[in-house]
C-alpha cells in the first residue's frame, strides 16, 4: 500500500511535462481504484477483431507497460470469429473473454438481447467525439474503433472517381473491385448506406460495371496492388493509407457523397472472469497513448484532442453513419438485394 | 511331446460348415498327414489346432489337456505348438539366425543355452553357413528350412506343417519330403502335416487322414489307404483308379451291361439292384490273358500311351464306360483292336456311388 501511494505521489509530482513527453497520462483517481481491483484479478483476456494484428498488439503492449501486474492475453481473430466464439463460450458457460472488440454493431445487439454484456460507464468517455459517446443508452457497449469506408485507387489513375455515383461512369467498367456484404461487415454497412442514399438503382448500375467481388474489403487493396483492378469501392480507408505509407502505389479518395462511417464496438461480458480488468482496458482505449498508437497506424483516433495521421480530423471528413434502429433487418435486406442484383 | 485327441470337432462360418464333427487321435510322436482337396476342412483343422480360431463344437486335447473348445481357446503362444506355413512366413526384417532365435529369446534362456539350441536347430536343417543372411538372399527351399528350424528351435510338443512344400519346385519338393521325415525321426515330435499331395502324405506319414467336405473319410496307414480305401472318393483321390458304374445284383456282384463282375463288397449298401461302382487300380488290370472265366470282359482299345516304365491303355468295355490299364511297355495294343480285359476279383472293390456332397 505504501509503495503504491509513493508511486502515485511520484507520478503526480513529475507533473505534465514529463508525462506528456513520455506520452503516458497520469492514472486518474477513478482508474486507480479500478487498477487495484484489476490487479487483484491478475489477468485480462482480450478478444479483438477491430484493428489488425500489429495495431492491437501495440495497444496491448502499451496497456502492459502502463498497468504492470496484469497478465494480458490477446486473441486477435476476424470479428465474426470472435463473436461466434464468445457465443459458444456463453452457450457452454465457459466465458473466458474480458473484453470483446468487433466491427459489427449487430453483435452487440445480439449479446445485449441475451443479457451477455454488462453495463458500465468508462471513466474518460468524455474525451471521445461527442457523436460516439453514449451510443448505447444502457451503456453495455461503447465505441472501440472508427472505421471509414471510402474509395481507393491505383496511383496510375490520375482522375479517380470523386463520389460513389462517379463509380458508375463509363471509364470504370471492368475496373472496380469490391468486397462482399455477406462476408464483410463494413461492406454490408456500405450497401445499407448506399441503398438509403440512392436505392436499388445504384446496385443495378453498379452491377453493369462488372465489379470483381472478393470477400473482405481488404481484397480491394490486393486487387489494386496486383494490378488486377484500378479502383476499389467500399474500400477500407485506414488500411489503404497504411499501404500507401508503406510505399505501395495506392491512394485514397474520400467520396464527396460521404465516407461511410462504421463504428467498431467493445463490451465487457457479464460473465467475464476478470471484469475489472476488462473495464480498465475500455478506459485505456480512450487514453492519449492509444490514440497516439491509432494515429501512427492511420486509424481515426478515439479522442478529440489527438489528431489523426497527416493532420486529418473527424471534422475534416464528410461522413455518414447508418441509423441503428432497424439496422439488423436492413443489413439482411441489403445482402439479399446484393445477391439478387450483383450475384 | 504329447498326443492329440480331437473329439467331435466342428467349425461353421455363418451358414457354411467347414468342419462337420471330426474325431482323430494322433499318438505321441506320430506323424499324421491330413490329406484332401482344397476346401476339405484340413486347413480349418490346422487353424483350430494352432489356436488361431475357436471351434463351433467339440474339443481338442493335447497330452490330456483341453486346449480348444467353444468356451475357451488357449492362445497360440501358450500351446507349445509350432506351425510352418505354406508361404514360409519368414520375417523379412530378420536374418536367418534372428528368425530362428526369436522364439528362444522369448523364453529368456541363458545366452549359452540359446546359442546351443540355435546352432542345433540350424544344423538340423543344414542352414548353419547361411545364418547371417536375410530372407531375400535365400532360395525358396532355404526359406522353407528357416521356417522349419524356427518352428523346431522352441522344442514344441507338437509341430504343424501347412502345405510346407507346395511353393517349391518338383525336384526340391521330393528332396524336402525325406528331409521332413528325417527331422521327424530324429526329434520324434508329434506332427500334423497338411497337404493336398498324396505323394507327400504317403512318403512322410505314419498315418493318413483323408478328408472331404469337412469329414474324415478314412484314417489309416499309407498302405491301408491305398490298398483298402474305405470309399470310392478315397480310392480315386489316392493314386490312379478306375470307377466302373453298374448295378448291384447281390452282395459282391455288380452287373455291367451283360457281364456280372465279382468283387469284394465294401459298399455297405442294404438292398439289391441299387447303383454302385466297382473300383480297381489300373496297375491291377490285365489284358489278353486267360485268367479263368471270372471278371473277363471284351473291349476295344481306344488309346495307348507309352510312358517308358509302363504303357497306359484305355479300353472301352461298354458304351460310355472305359477302363484304364497300366501294362508292360512291351505289349503294344493298337487303337481299334479288340482286346480281352481281366479284372482280378481280389483287386476289385464295390463301393456306393460317390456323392459330391456326402451326408454327414
Amino acid at each position: 500500500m505504501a509503495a503504491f501511494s509513493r508511486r502515485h505521489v511520484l507520478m503526480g509530482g513529475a507533473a505534465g511535462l514529463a508525462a506528456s513527453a513520455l506520452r503516458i497520462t497520469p492514472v486518474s483517481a477513478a482508474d486507480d481504484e479500478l487498477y487495484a481491483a484489476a490487479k487483484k484479478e491478475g489477468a485480462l483476456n482480450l478478444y479483438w477483431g477491430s484493428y489488425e494484428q500489429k495495431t492491437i498488439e501495440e495497444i496491448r503492449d502499451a496497456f502492459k507497460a502502463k498497468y504492470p501486474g496484469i497478465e494480458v492475453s490477446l486473441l486477435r481473430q476476424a470479428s465474426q470469429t470472435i463473436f461466434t466464439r464468445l457465443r459458444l463460450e456463453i452457450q457452454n458457460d465457459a466465458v473466458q473473454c474480458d473484453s470483446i472488440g468487433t466491427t459489427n454493431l449487430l453483435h452487440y445487439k445480439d449479446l445485449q438481447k441475451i443479457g451477455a454484456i454488462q453495463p458500465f460507464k468508462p471513466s474518460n468517455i468524455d474525451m471521445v467525439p461527442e457523436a460516439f459517446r453514449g451510443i448505447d443508452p444502457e451503456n453495455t457497449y461503447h465505441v472501440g474503433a472508427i472505421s471509414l469506408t471510402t474509395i481507393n485507387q491505383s496511383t496510375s489513375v490520375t482522375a479517380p472517381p470523386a463520389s460513389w455515383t462517379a463509380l458508375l461512369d463509363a471509364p470504370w467498367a471492368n475496373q472496380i473491385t469490391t468486397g462482399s456484404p455477406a462476408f464483410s461487415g463494413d461492406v454490408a454497412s456500405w450497401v445499407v448506406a448506399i441503398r438509403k442514399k440512392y436505392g436499388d438503382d445504384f446496385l443495378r448500375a453498379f452491377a453493369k460495371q462488372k465489379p470483381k467481388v472478393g470477400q473482405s474489403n481488404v481484397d480491394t487493396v490486393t486487387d489494386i496492388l496486383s494490378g488486377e483492378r484500378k479502383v476499389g469501392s467500399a474500400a477500407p480507408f485506414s488500411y489503404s493509407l497504411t499501404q500507401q505509407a508503406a510505399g505501395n502505389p495506392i491512394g485514397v479518395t474520400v467520396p464527396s457523397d460521404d465516407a461511410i462511417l462504421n463504428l467498431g464496438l467493445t463490451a465487457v461480458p457479464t460473465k467475464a472472469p476478470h471484469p475489472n480488468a476488462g473495464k480498465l482496458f475500455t478506459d485505456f482505449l480512450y487514453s492519449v497513448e492509444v490514440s497516439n498508437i491509432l494515429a501512427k497506424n492511420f486509424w481515426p483516433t478515439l479522442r478529440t484532442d489527438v489528431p489523426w495521421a497527416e493532420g486529418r480530423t473527424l471534422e475534416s471528413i464528410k461522413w455518414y453513419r447508418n441509423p441503428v434502429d432497424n439496422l439488423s433487418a436492413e443489413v439482411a435486406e441489403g445482402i439479399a438485394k446484393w445477391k439478387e442484383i450483383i450475384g | 511331446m504329447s498326443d492329440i485327441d480331437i473329439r467331435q470337432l466342428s467349425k461353421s462360418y455363418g451358414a457354411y460348415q467347414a468342419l462337420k464333427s471330426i474325431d482323430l487321435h494322433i499318438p505321441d510322436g506320430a506323424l499324421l498327414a491330413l490329406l484332401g482337396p482344397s476346401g476339405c476342412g484340413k486347413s480349418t483343422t490346422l487353424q483350430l489346432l494352432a489356436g488361431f480360431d475357436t471351434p463351433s463344437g467339440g474339443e481338442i486335447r493335447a497330452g490330456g489337456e483341453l486346449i480348444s473348445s467353444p468356451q475357451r481357446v488357449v492362445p497360440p503362444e501358450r500351446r507349445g505348438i509350432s506351425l510352418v506355413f505354406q508361404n514360409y512366413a519368414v520375417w523379412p526384417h530378420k536374418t536367418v539366425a534372428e528368425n530362428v532365435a526369436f522364439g528362444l529369446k522369448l523364453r529368456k534362456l541363458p545366452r549359452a543355452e540359446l546359442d546351443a539350441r540355435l546352432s542345433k536347430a540350424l544344423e538340423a536343417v543344414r542352414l548353419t553357413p547361411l545364418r547371417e543372411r536375410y530372407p531375400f538372399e535365400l532360395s525358396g527351399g532355404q526359406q522353407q528350412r528357416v521356417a522349419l528350424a524356427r518352428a523346431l528351435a522352441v522344442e514344441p510338443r507338437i509341430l504343424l506343417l501347412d502345405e510346407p512344400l507346395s511353393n517349391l519346385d518338383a525336384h526340391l519338393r521330393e528332396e524336402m519330403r525325406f528331409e521332413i521325415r528325417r527331422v521327424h525321426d530324429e526329434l520324434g515330435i508329434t506332427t500334423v502335416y497338411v497337404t493336398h499331395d498324396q505323394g507327400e502324405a504317403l512318403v512322410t506319414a505314419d498315418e493318413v487322414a483323408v478328408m472331404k467336405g469337412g469329414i474324415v473319410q478314412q484314417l489309416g496307414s499309407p498302405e491301408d489307404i491305398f490298398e483298402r480305401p474305405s470309399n470310392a472318393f478315397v480310392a480315386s483321390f489316392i493314386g490312379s483308379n478306375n470307377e466302373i458304374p453298374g448295378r448291384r445284383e447281390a452282395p459282391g456282384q455288380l452287373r455291367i451291361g451283360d457281364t456280372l463282375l465279382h468283387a469284394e463288397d465294401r459298399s455297405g449298401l442294404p438292398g439289391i439292384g441299387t447303383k454302385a461302382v466297382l473300383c480297381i487300380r489300373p496297375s491291377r488290370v490285365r489284358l489278353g490273358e486267360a485268367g479263368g472265366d471270372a471278371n473277363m470282359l471284351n473291349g476295344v482299345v481306344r488309346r495307348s500311351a507309352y510312358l517308358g516304365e509302363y504303357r497306359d491303355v484305355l479300353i472301352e468295355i461298354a458304351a460310355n464306360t472305359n477302363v484304364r490299364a497300366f501294362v508292360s511297355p512291351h505289349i503294344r495294343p493298337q487303337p481299334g483292336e479288340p482286346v480281352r480285359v481281366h479284372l482280378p476279383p481280389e483287386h476289385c472293390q464295390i463301393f456306393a456311388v460317390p456323392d459330391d456332397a456326402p451326408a454327414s
Partner: protein
Amino acid sequence: MASSPPMSAARSASVGYRRHHAFRLVVLVILLAVLALLIVQPLGWIVFNSFHDDDTGRWTLRNYAQIFASTSLWAPLFNSLLLATAVAVISTLLGVPLAWLVARTDMPMRGFIRLFTMAAFVTPSFIGALGWILLAAPNSGWLNVGWRALSGADWPLLNIYSMTGTIFVCSIYTVPYTFTLVSSALEEMPVELEDAATTLGSGVLKTMFSVTIPLVMPAVLVGFILSFIQGMTLFGVPAFLLTPSGTLVVTTKLAEFYQLFPPALYMSAAYCMPLIAITGMLFYARRRILGRRQFTTVGGKGRAGRKIRLKGWRLVALVFALFVPVTAVVLPYVAIVLVSLSRAWGLGPVPSNLTLHWYRWAIFENAETQRAIVNSLVYAGIAASFCMVIGILVAYIVERKLLRGAGLLAALVTIPIIIPGIVLSVGFFSAYTRQPLNLYGTAMLIIAAFVATFLPIAYSQAGSILKGISPDLERAARSVGASEARTFASITAPLMRGGLVAGWLLVFIPIMRELSVAIFLVSPRTNVMTTLIYNYKDGGNYEAVCAASALLLFATLIVVLLARFVTEGAAYRRRNAASLGAAP
C-alpha cells in the same frame, strides 16, 4: 500318477489364457474410451446440434426440412460434388503415374520431384490460391501479362477466378495424397510380379496399367477418396477463387451461415450431414470394388528393388513429372517469396524494394510468430504420433478381425474427415469446454482436435500398410510363443516401419497446414501458424502472410527431410548388414 503332468500343464495354460484375455480387454477398453472421448463425443454434439433451432435453442427438425426444401441450399452441394469429383479424378490421373515414375523407374530428378511434391502438400491451400491469384488473375496475373506481351492478344490465357481454376488449384495441392499413398505401396511390391508380365511380352506401359496399378489398387482407391474429401472440405481455395464469380460450395455456404445473427451454428451442423452420407457411399463402393481380392504383397518371400528403364522416354516422363512440382510449388512460391521479400509488394520485385525485414520480424522480433512456429511443430508432432498409434490399433483390430463389429469402428474413425473443419471446431468446443472435461484454452484441446480430425488418414494409411503384411508372419510369431502384444512389437511394427513414417508425415503435414478446426480452439498461448497467417491475411498484411507461409513451408520441409533421413538411414544400415552377412 500318470495324469499329474498334464494337470499342471493345463493349469499354466489356463493362467496364460486369462492373462491373454485380460491384456486384450485392457487395450480394447482404453482404445474405446479414447475413441469415445475423441470422436463420439464431438460428433454426438454435432448431431445433437443439428436438431436444434439457432434462434430458440429448442429441438427441431426445421434445419433438415430447410435443406430438403430450399434449392438455394442444393446448389452449393451440387457444386461441391462437381468440384470434389473433378479433383479426385484429376489428382488420381496425375498422382498415380507420378508415383509410378518416382518409385519404379529410372527417371531423372526423382528425389527433387518427391521433395517438391511433399512441399505442395505442406502448402495451405489458401496460400496456394493466393500464389495462383498472383500468377493467373485475368488482368494482372504474371502468366497472363507474359502471354499478352508474347502473343499480342488482348484476352487472358488463364482465368483463375472460375470453376476450372478452382478445380486446378485444388487438384495440384491434393495430388500429394495419392502420390504418397501409391508410391509407398509400389515400393513394397515385389518386382517379380512386374517381371512376370514383362516376360509375357507386355510393354512397360502395358505392364504398369495391367499389373502394377491394379496391384496397388487399395492405395489408389484410398487416394481417390481422400482427394474427393479434400475437394469437398477445402475452404480457402473456393473462398478466394469462386467468390468473384458468385459460385457457392458447401464450405463457403457454411461460412455464410456463420455470418448470421446469431450465427447459424446448428443449421451448419445439419448441412454437413449429406456430406457424411456421400462419403459413406464412397467407402462402401471401395469395399465393393476391393471385395474378396487379396492384396497381401509382403508375404514371407523377400523383395528386391529394381528400377524399370525408360530409355528414350526418360525426358518425356520428366516433363510430365515436373508438372505438379512446378505448378504447385515453384511458380506460386516464386510469387510468394517475392512478395515476402518486398518492403511494399505493390511496387514489384525491384532492387530498391527488396528486404529481409519480414523474415527478421517473424523469426526474431515478433513473439507471436515465434510462439506459433514452435506451437505448430510441437502440436503437429504430438498429434501425428497419437494419431498413428490409435490409427494402427484400430486398423489392426479391423484388418485382423479381432473384434465383432470392427467395421463399425472403422466407420466411426472415418467420419471426422468429411466434416468441414469449422463445424468440427464447434463440435470440439461443445465437447471439451464442459466439466468434467474442460480443456478450454489448453494445448491438449488443440492436440485432441487435430488427432480426431486426422485419425481417418492415419487409420486408412495404417490399414493399407497392414493389408500388405501377411497375417501368417504374425501367426508364425504366435506359434513360437510370442504374445499378441509382443508379436505386434517385434514383427508387425517393424514391418510397418517404412510405411509408418510415410503415414506419420501424411498426418503431420495436413495438421501443420490445418486452419479451420483450430479456429475456435486456439487461445493466445496456443496459437498456431495457420491461424496467425490467416489473421495477417485478414489485416491485409500480405508481406507478413507470405513470409510466414515460406517459414511454415521451410519448417515442415525440415521435418520431412529429417523423417526421410531417419528411415533411409535405417534401411541403409539394414542393407549394409545384409550384404556383410552375405559375404563369405
